[in-house]
């Protein structure tokens, strides 16, 4: 298994280089001069603009710029600086915690709500509860995050406090500790909860039809044991795959949620940096996201063996 992990990690290197180069090209191809973007509607003083371009290697060809960047990252662990001369690693370190907190909050909500509701629906298949759960997940999927975000912020953040004086859900920022993440976490998890509910339901319904379930029931095991030990455990495999991949999605999907709730995370930063064309920050952020994605997938693959002993690595 150790060899398997190492091989997987080595495989990540070309992925990482490919991804950063691609992002580098995309950011480079964006229209507009990044130096001019710093000056708004005013024309930058040509001499000042020249010094800045020189400083950030903006006059060099793309591949050379990429080499400056990637050699810094690989040999010195230096992710470069943004236009305000702040090291990118410093910016990301601070923001990362916020996004991770948010993504984990969302992931936990997703797992509890999604699996719980899915389980409930599967066991009540065909009845009113099942139909209601299916209908509400459909509703949740069809409303854009932007809308749920603003509506919940207004209703639970602003109005609830105005009407009752209770300050449960902060409107914005991360000043209230973990409480700050509840509302944005839920908004971020929203669509995924719906998918996970449906996935759980289908997967469990499928599993419950399998031969070994019939065997287990025939052996006289209790219903709780049949469903919990034999049904759910096998049904979990596709769910874990989904959750693992979704962690990456959540980190990336945080752009909208973080902007609405003013959370100083990666998503928020990515938005600003793309706007300002801060190449090093954009590429650095993406690099970290790619890494997380790769790691999350690795963990998922390793978890398979725990759930299903037939799966082995070499």
């Amino acid at each position, binding site marked *: 298994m150790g060899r398997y992990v190492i091989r997987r990690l080595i495989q990540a290197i070309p992925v990482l280089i490919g991804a950063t180069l691609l992002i580098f090209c995309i950011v480079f191809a*964006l*229209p*507009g*001069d990044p130096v*001019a*973007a*710093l*000056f*708004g*509607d*005013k*024309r*930058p*003083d*040509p*001499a*000042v*603009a*020249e*010094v*800045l371009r020189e*400083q950030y290697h903006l006059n060099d060809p793309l591949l050379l710029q990429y080499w400056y960047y990637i050699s810094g990252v690989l040999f010195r662990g230096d992710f470069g600086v*943004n*236009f*305000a*001369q*702040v090291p990118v690693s*410093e*910016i990301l*370190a*601070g*923001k990362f915690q916020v996004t991770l907190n948010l993504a984990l909050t969302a992931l936990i909500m997703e797992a509890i709500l999604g699996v719980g509701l899915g389980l409930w629906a599967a066991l009540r298949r065909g009845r009113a509860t099942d139909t209601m759960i299916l209908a509400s997940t459909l509703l949740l999927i069809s409303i854009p995050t932007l809308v749920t975000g*603003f509506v919940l*912020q*207004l209703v639970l*953040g*602003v109005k609830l*406090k*105005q009407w009752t004086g209770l*300050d449960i859900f*902060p*409107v*914005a*920022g*991360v*000043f209230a500790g973990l409480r700050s993440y509840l509302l944005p976490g839920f908004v971020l998890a929203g669509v995924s909860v719906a998918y996970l509910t449906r996935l759980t339901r289908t997967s469990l319904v499928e599993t419950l039809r399998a031969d070994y379930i019939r065997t287990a029931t025939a052996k006289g095991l209790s219903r709780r044991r049949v469903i919990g030990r034999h049904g759910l455990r096998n049904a979990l495999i596709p769910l874990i795959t989904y959750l693992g991949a979704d962690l990456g999605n959540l980190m990336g999907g945080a752009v909208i949620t973080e*902007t*609405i*709730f*003013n959370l*100083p995370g990666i998503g*928020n*930063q990515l*938005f*600003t940096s793309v*706007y*300002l064309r801060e190449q090093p920050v954009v590429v650095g952020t993406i690099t970290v996201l790619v890494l997380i994605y790769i790691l999350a997938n690795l963990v998922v693959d390793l978890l398979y063996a725990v759930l299903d002993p037939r799966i082995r690595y070499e």
Partner: protein
Amino acid sequence: MEVGEPQKMLYPQDTTETEGAEVLAAVFSPLVRYDENKQPVEEAAESITTTDSKVWTIKLKSSYTWHDGTPVKAEDYVRAWNFAALQDNAMSSSYFFGRVDGYNDVHPGEGKTPTAKEMKGLKVVDDTTLEVTLTAPFSQFKTMLGYTAFYPLPASAIGSDGKLSPTFGEKPIGQGLFKVDKPYKKGTDQTIEMSVYDKFPGKKPTGWTKLQFKVYTSSETAWNDLQAENLDIHDSLPATAISTAKQVLGDRYFDEPDASIGYIGVPLKYNKEFENVDVRKAISMAIDRKTISDTVFSGTRSPADDFINPAIPGYRQGACTACTYNPAEAKKLYESAGGPKTIELGYNADGGHKEWIEAVANNLRANLGIEVTPKPFEKFQGILDALDAKEYKGLFRMGWSIDYPAAENYLTPIFGTGAIGTGSNYGGYSNKEFDDLVAKGDQATDAAEGLKFYQQADDILLKELPYIPVYFYRSNFGHSTKVKNVKLNLLNQINWADVEKG
């Protein structure tokens, strides 16, 4: 207090955008501030005098100290200004010092190396006196001195490597009302914490000592936070909130002129079709400014009727007669002048300009009977590049926010012949009479006298319409029940000493 993320670290000489300037204005005390009559009055300066508008003597109040307790000296100003002007330092405010004698030695322009490190026009006379010699007389120099670029810098701001120290950028040491409590990590921290500096000699607020700037990326979110009373002051309410803000906040909502202006730019230098002034006049008269301000901007803008904004001394109401909506007259004029049958309207798609540009296009289509195509560019710079390359010949959207509150700032940088190529004269307008009048205004020894000439120069613009003014910006701000007496000054910054607890 709501604020957007400052674009750079907190260096006064590298800050030309509003958010960073707002934070710095709390930490530094300017040489002049602006009174109720919009006139510059001495703040950190004891007196600012000149006899010929060329040599200026600035005497400092000796009572000012840096936040580390040491006195502020004349050399602190000279150091800061020389640093800002030196080309190698690439400070974004360097052009503010372009009128100081010796600027060309330290800032010779693209591709050239500076021949000096200091401007010969700056002289320390004694600890509290400095003398500034300009290349040519400029009657509005005193007005300029209220701006961020003219703040002083303590010796510790510049490191041994000759660059601004990052420690200073995170926790600037100023000589103003508030001192920064802990370093602000740009991009990470969401608040900038300050408290009143005990030894500040000017007016201090009563009843409170702590000031916190909260960084928001979305103005809508800040508005929600204000309603939930988690935020006390929001000075740039989003357009979506304006219709309800009045009702929600009542007399805690304010709507005041802001010194910025929006135009339709005319590529005079690049397209002869717009050469005839009647064509420009007709286009101007065909635009229904009132409806655009009220509907498209939900009242957050007001119809423009001068090249000078009402927030600034020198504005004359209704000065632009061609800015009055008159579709019938417009059509007649346009046809007799033989204006182009098709027009392109360029705008940058990243700044929320699509709606009003389309409204203007509709106006022109309906009223002049011509074909009008709005043409989006990703960034404003794209329009400028296309103009420079002579690829683009259409009208374009333009905006101007002032650098310092003087009428002159609406003229020289945008319409002066000298501003073609290096300044913001994107249309390439050039008029000798206009340039002469502005120069006369600059040479006046009395600011009021200068204003008369600027207004005459403005009259030429009103007659010639090198650009077509469309709207004036407005400041829409509000505050919570926890504070009162919140007022904005000419730079759209809050007079902190006046704010009281509610």
